[in-house]
């Protein structure tokens, strides 16, 4: 499996960059403390869309977990891939070996998945430790985070193949920021006006948040599989797109 060699290369390159891992992990934890505990002191409880009432920290923790998976995946699949694609020409050198564009796409997406999952695992441990996870279903929060990372790394990487310069990354921020704030992350979907609600429900992070929240609060139903399907399909489409774009860009 040649995609594994792509991952191996990244492990080698990142062994010296463990600080990047630390920040990727620390950010959502800081949010958890500031929002969950800080804001939670003011807003004692929240009624979820499923109708149960929970503490604010418990409500917001799944959303932050989803966001950490998203951020971890996006960071690696955009900036780092762009650098290797346009500046370092790392991929060009790799394509002179039996590795092909599809292996590259799979390997890079898998690598961002791994990073996303590592951040999520660390975050989940902290959330459990401060008692923000109510249900044993919460154990599935980690595999769920992998689907979130899949969707975002594949789509993020696909978008990256169209970027001309680092300035274009503002578009990614432009997409990520509002999604982070308004995907029913910090308040339930029910509080949004009807028109906005449909828009929110169209975003991938919303599905990630809803999935994580269902699992970590134990509000489990078949509907959760719908979120998984959304994320998985988005991930597959993105992956196929990435592999085509890489072939187009690199094999000219």
């Amino acid at each position, binding site marked *: 499996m040649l995609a594994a060699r792509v991952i191996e290369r990244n492990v080698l390159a990142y062994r010296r960059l463990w600080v990047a891992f630390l920040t990727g992990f620390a950010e959502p934890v800081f949010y958890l403390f500031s929002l969950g505990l800080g804001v939670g002191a003011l807003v004692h409880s929240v009624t979820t869309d499923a109708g149960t009432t929970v503490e604010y920290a418990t409500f917001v923790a799944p959303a932050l977990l989803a966001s950490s998976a998203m951020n971890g995946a996006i960071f690696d699949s955009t900036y780092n891939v762009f650098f290797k694609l346009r500046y*370092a*020409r*790392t991929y060009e050198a*790799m394509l002179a070996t*039996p590795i*092909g564009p599809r292996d590259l796409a799979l390997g890079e997406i898998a690598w961002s998945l791994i990073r996303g999952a590592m951040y999520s695992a660390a975050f989940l441990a902290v959330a459990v430790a401060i008692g923000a996870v109510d249900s044993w279903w919460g154990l599935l929060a980690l595999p769920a985070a992998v689907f979130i990372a899949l969707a975002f790394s594949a789509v993020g990487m696909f978008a990256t193949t169209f970027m001309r310069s680092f300035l274009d990354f503002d578009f990614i921020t432009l997409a990520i920021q509002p999604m982070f704030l308004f995907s029913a992350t910090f308040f339930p979907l029910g509080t949004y006006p009807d028109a906005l609600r449909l828009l929110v429900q169209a975003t991938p992070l919303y599905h990630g948040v809803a999935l994580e929240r269902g699992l970590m609060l134990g509000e489990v139903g078949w509907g959760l599989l719908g979120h998984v399907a959304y994320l998985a399909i988005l991930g597959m489409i993105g992956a196929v797109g990435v592999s085509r774009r890489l072939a187009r860009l690199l*094999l*000219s």
Partner: protein
Amino acid sequence: MSDVLVRARGLTKRFGDFIAVDGIDVEVRPGEAFGFLGPNGAGKSSTMKMIGCVSPVTSGELQVFGMDPATHGPAIRARLGVCPQEDMLDGELTVEENLWIYGRYFGLSRREARARAQGLLEFAQLTDRRSDRVEPLSGGMKRRLTIARALISEPDLLLLDEPTTGLDPQARHVLWDKLFRLKQQGVTLIVTTHYMDEAEQLCDRLVVMDGGRIAAQGSPRELIERHCSREVLELRLDPVVSATGTTGAARGVELLGEAFGERLGERVEVLPDRVLVYTDDGEAALEAAHARGVRPISSLVRRASLEDVFLTLTGRTLVD
């Protein structure tokens, strides 16, 4: 295995409307060293990339190891070693890791990759820099590392695109020596170069490309015999008419034209820094030039080389 390792028929590469490689026919046989010569933009690298299965063929036929790059790219590349014109080393890894991971891309076991990397570090004379990042290496060191990297998979066919550009003479000889030995082991070499001595030393057969086409092909000796005179008279003329009695360049060329214009078998080629007279008897040509009143700064009679073939075929300014 057939008797032809690389077979191209009407091989064409187009970038938009621009034709970089214009229907070339090439056959490379197992175990030979094959060269592509040509001026900048001739289409050498474009051809190499198609053979290396990293650039799709626009039209025509191409087979490498009897396989079609369009359908068997990975299988072909598994048996190739490629030293591209630009180094493209992995700047996020150390020197040793660059070699090692490349072996892994080819499916070598960790142990095997490590062992081969050791040997190649020595070959590239980079053992003491093994733990350094690639970026601070000198240009020649990077080049050596790129060549070493191409060898890690012990390829059957080695594609070297201007391998010695940027190498000092010593490193160049180390490389030539290595290439000779690889050839003795049965490795097939395809080399592009601008260095004529390199082509004469290394290549059994070569093609001269110009404007995407093949201008000539054969062994170095054949090409010289076919496209050149036996000897070359080189004259260095003064750019300005000076007081010391040398002939000014413009006047010199005129006189040479008169001297050799009417005689068959001699051709005068004017380069920015000197004038070449292709002749079968250099000393006689020099005397004839003197008789006409040409007073060069310096003159030299030498055997014709591949460089002269190259100049003849790729058409620099020609004066009759």
